[in-house]
């Protein structure tokens, strides 16, 4: 079982490593956000907040962004596998659908975490510092859970989609709102009630808040409740994914 999961992960890692265009492409967007927002809103933020540094607020948000997009896309890769026929090879193999789901989730999540770590490294250049090893470790746990949850989301969607036609719709009506309303870029305080409500049901809100709490100490909901929430959501989405995968036909 471990070996099967490893084989599935390894395949995804090879794809990731070999596609340099994808590697740089998925890094480019978060970096653009980091620089544009960081320098654009930085002065305004520190004026309003009374001297706080915007990069400290923004960096965890951008790390989360990198993880979010990479994780969802890794999950959605199953649709490509379906279109190019490789999915059949995996589905006719004498392995349980749960193994496939776990393997794919870990593969996608690993890539997403690597991506997140690269971005975290790049924020160092812009002056972002993590206070201690402990906060880094707790931060990594959050990165891992965000990665697992959103790879699971990607896989769950992919198991229900026949082709890439709906891809743009998922991006614009699901992933983008999840990102923008998660508090990754701006504080959620003082938002209009309707928007605030959406933010509160956005799972990423708790991921961002937890990661930010862990590595900068700024947290709205508390690190431990964020951890409990995103942790249990990850388990739930993986279970849903496993059920949907077991019903999948190639």
């Amino acid at each position: 079982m471990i070996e099967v999961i490893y084989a599935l992960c390894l395949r995804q890692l090879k794809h990731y490593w070999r596609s340099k265009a994808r590697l740089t492409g998925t890094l480019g967007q978060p970096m653009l956000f980091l620089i544009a927002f960081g320098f654009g809103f930085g002065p305004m933020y520190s004026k309003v907040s009374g001297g706080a540094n915007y990069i400290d607020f923004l960096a965890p948000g951008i790390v989360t962004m990198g993880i979010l997009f990479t994780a969802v896309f890794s999950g959605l890769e199953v649709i490509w596998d379906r279109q190019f026929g490789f999915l059949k090879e995996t589905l006719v193999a004498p392995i349980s659908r749960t193994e496939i789901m776990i393997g794919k989730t870990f593969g996608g999540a690993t890539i997403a975490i690597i991506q997140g770590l690269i971005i975290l490294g790049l924020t160092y250049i812009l002056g972002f510092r993590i206070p201690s090893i402990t906060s880094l470790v707790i931060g990594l746990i959050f990165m891992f859970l965000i990665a697992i949850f959103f790879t699971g989301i990607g896989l769950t969607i992919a198991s229900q989609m026949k082709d890439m036609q709906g891809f743009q719709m998922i991006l614009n009506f699901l992933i983008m709102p999840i990102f923008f309303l998660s508090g990754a870029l701006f504080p959620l305080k003082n938002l209009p009630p309707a928007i605030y409500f959406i933010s509160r049901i956005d799972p990423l809100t708790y991921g961002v808040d937890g990661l930010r709490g862990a590595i900068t100490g700024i947290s709205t909901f508390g690190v431990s409740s964020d951890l409990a929430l995103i942790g249990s959501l990850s388990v739930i989405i993986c279970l849903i994914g496993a059920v949907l995968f077991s019903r999948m036909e190639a």
Partner: protein
Amino acid sequence: MQNILSVQSLVKKFGDFTAVKNISFNVEAGSIFAFLGPNGAGKSTTIKMLTTVLKPTSGKIIINGFNVLKEQDKARASFGIVFQDSSLDDELTAYENVVYHAVVYKVPKKERTERIQKALEIVGLWNRREDYVKNYSGGMKRRLEIARALVHYPKILFLDEPTVGLDPQTRNSIWDHIKKLNEERNMTIFLTTHYMEEAEAIADQVAVIDHGKIIESGTVEEIKRQTETESLEEAFLKLTGRNIRDDNGTSRKRMMRGMGRMR
């Protein structure tokens, strides 16, 4: 002789369209069985059900003594399949594709390297194993798929139009390999093809399916005798008529919907 594959009252419906209408047949262990029919007759749908990719609406399938619906993984370990369209990972090398297969089919680690080498040698791809599949020609891809399907020592090998779109040299070499596997390893071969002369040359048993029903089955000789024809191709045309068919059930429906929209 023992039956390696037994199909009883198999039915598959897509909405109100019935692609496979209550078919039953047996395949003897060690034989080469050709499953023939015009486009859209239900061949690929049947193969997909036999190989657990599609769930039948009703009916029973036994492969190597295992119920395909109830003991899925044991049945899956018993067969190899080469699908009609490629199911290789283009972004991996040929070798990596086969290793992936060996792992997910749980081939014992000790035997892996040797089995993979042997399978790739059979189809003459051992020297090209480090190439990416995306750089392979159509014929090489087919051969690689056959090699990959052999790594877990299947009892029965399903080949869905293994020689479609290939030049005569490659086709001949693929049939030679298949025949050798059948003779040397006593591997049962279940194949579909549109090249009737190929089926005539290689098959022990033939079943002709049309409109989701098996309309004739037996040895090539028996079929020729019954239809009073000289070749399998003539027999096939006599049995299935000379009208040109739509591609398949689902795309036919899609096409009809599309045409309705155009009007």
